């Protein structure tokens, strides 16, 4: 296990996602974010990993998010877990931002922080896929590693076990670097009551696009590069059947398979 050494600052990018059943607003064709929200699940793993690396050292853990005002809730949740400081980039001009526009703005916010290590959670529960870190890394010209199931730091190097479809790769990169962690990396802690109380007093900075500087305004000027054209009901799995077992389930399954010529 390496020591944290010269690691001074860790930034963790987090997302505030709608909780419960999500739906798309038919008018704006955007995800309806008017209801309650929560810290994206795997982002908790990213925060946990930062706190684990910090341990009882002076390393500063700053959580960074882009999104509308209610995202403050998720940032407070991360502060309650133990992060030191939070930054929210919020601007009406950024409503409905797509992945590349988001990556440009986050890159500006992260550039301002100059962290030694930037962590992301591997997936957002509201937007599928999730490959933001790769775009952010290209803007910041930093090395990155994704799908991290293990992470250690020593001598200015981050060492990551990346899980892919074919292998577990052990990858090293010089700091500063960006790492996207999977939910296999740790078990996130729960916030203590003391943590929740303390979170209210920790610094939480809200920035507009203009606050990030004229080059951020310019970078975001092109707006989103993708668009939603239409939203429709998907063709449901044809005739999906649901049965409660009352002793005959095995026979019903065989009948189902015979009907489809699968046995």
């Amino acid at each position, binding site marked *: 296990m390496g020591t944290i050494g010269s690691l001074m600052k860790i930034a963790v990018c987090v997302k505030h996602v709608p909780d419960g059943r999500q739906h798309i607003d038919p008018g704006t064709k955007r995800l309806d974010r008017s209801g309650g929200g929560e810290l994206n699940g795997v982002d908790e793993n990213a925060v946990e990993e930062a706190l684990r690396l910090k341990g009882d050292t002076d390393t500063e853990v700053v959580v960074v998010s882009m999104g509308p005002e209610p995202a403050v809730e998720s940032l407070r949740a991360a502060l309650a877990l133990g992060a030191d400081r939070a930054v929210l980039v919020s601007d009406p001009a950024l409503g409905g931002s797509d992945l*590349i526009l988001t990556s440009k703005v986050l890159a500006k916010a992260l550039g301002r922080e100059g962290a030694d290590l930037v962590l992301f959670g591997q997936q957002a529960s509201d937007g599928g896929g999730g490959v933001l870190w790769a*775009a952010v890394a290209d803007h910041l010209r930093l090395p*990155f590693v994704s*799908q991290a199931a293990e992470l250690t730091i020593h001598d200015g190097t981050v060492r990551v076990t990346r899980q892919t479809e074919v*292998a577990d790769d052990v990858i090293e990169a010089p700091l500063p670097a960006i790492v996207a962690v999977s939910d296999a990396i740790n078990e996130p802690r729960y916030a203590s009551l003391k943590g929740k109380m303390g979170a209210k007093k920790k610094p939480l900075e809200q920035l507009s696009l203009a606050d990030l500087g004229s080059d951020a305004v310019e970078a975001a000027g092109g707006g989103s590069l*993708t668009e939603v054209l239409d939203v429709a009901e998907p063709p449901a799995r044809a005739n999906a059947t649901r049965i409660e077992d009352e002793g005959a389930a095995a026979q019903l399954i*065989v009948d189902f398979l015979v009907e489809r010529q699968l046995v």
Partner: protein
Amino acid sequence: MKVLVFLEHHGDDLTKGSLGVLAKAADLGDGQVAAVVVGGGNLKAVAAEAGRLGATKVYVAADDALDPPLPQPRVDVLDAIVRAGGHDTVLFSNSVLAADIAAGLAARLDAGLNWDLVDITERDGRLVGKRPALQDSVLVDVGWRSERRVALFRTGSFEPAVGGQGDPEVEEVAVRLEKHSVGARIVDQHFANEGGPSVEGAEVVVAGGIGLGGPENFALAEELAGALGGVVGATRAVVYAGWYPHSAQIGQTGKTVSPKLYVALGVSGAVQHKVGMQNSKVIVSINKDPGAPIFEFSDLAVVGDLHAIVPKLTELVRQRRGS
């Protein structure tokens, strides 16, 4: 429209997913499809295979520095090819590697990126992608506003073409890599221990999850798989718990399968697992939890105790097959 397809390969084998995207690309524009293969060593066989399966032109970037499967050097390669070749559309089949390349390339080219697509069509001269969203409860049509477009498809969205003759134009490309692109390096690799029949090509997969209750209960899955003529798969959770080998793992960090029949035993259906099996033709799931997410994308959802149902089911299937 000038299309470029990124082809991922492991050894001399192109992935089925990227060959599916290659086949789909022939439907777009004038049917001319350029593909790119990147790696170390000799890629001639891989390039020839790409030609046989639909590429009219193959860019080959072969260099020892490109041997490790890392995304950032590949962003440099694709960026150079797109700029020199005037390609406006770059297509990828999803994988851990391909997703990272696609997003890095989109940032580099200032191109829009649409991901998790299951189809793409041309409508009035514009490209429209189809993306299931919100746990597949809606189907979204997405477009691009940028001059250049990057698209990342779910694995198994398209079938590869049937092999033809193919005599593609091959162009070797040499690319200078950016400093930040060579920062990350692979220092060690552990390949999943192969052995036993592969889940990837199987026509029937019986997958076991935590709901099996213990490693000894994988015998239930093995017996049912044997009766159905299939092979056993596993979720990440049970592989992590040490119940079953990683070579059988299905999901985001395991294999992607699209069998004719997928039987899920005690599998909850977490997103990490779903992405590896959602293209199965018929999905049957047995779970005692009526709220298990897997029921939302099963053709036959059985709420019940698998320990009671599966032995009977195996027996009935054996009788049926024996008769």
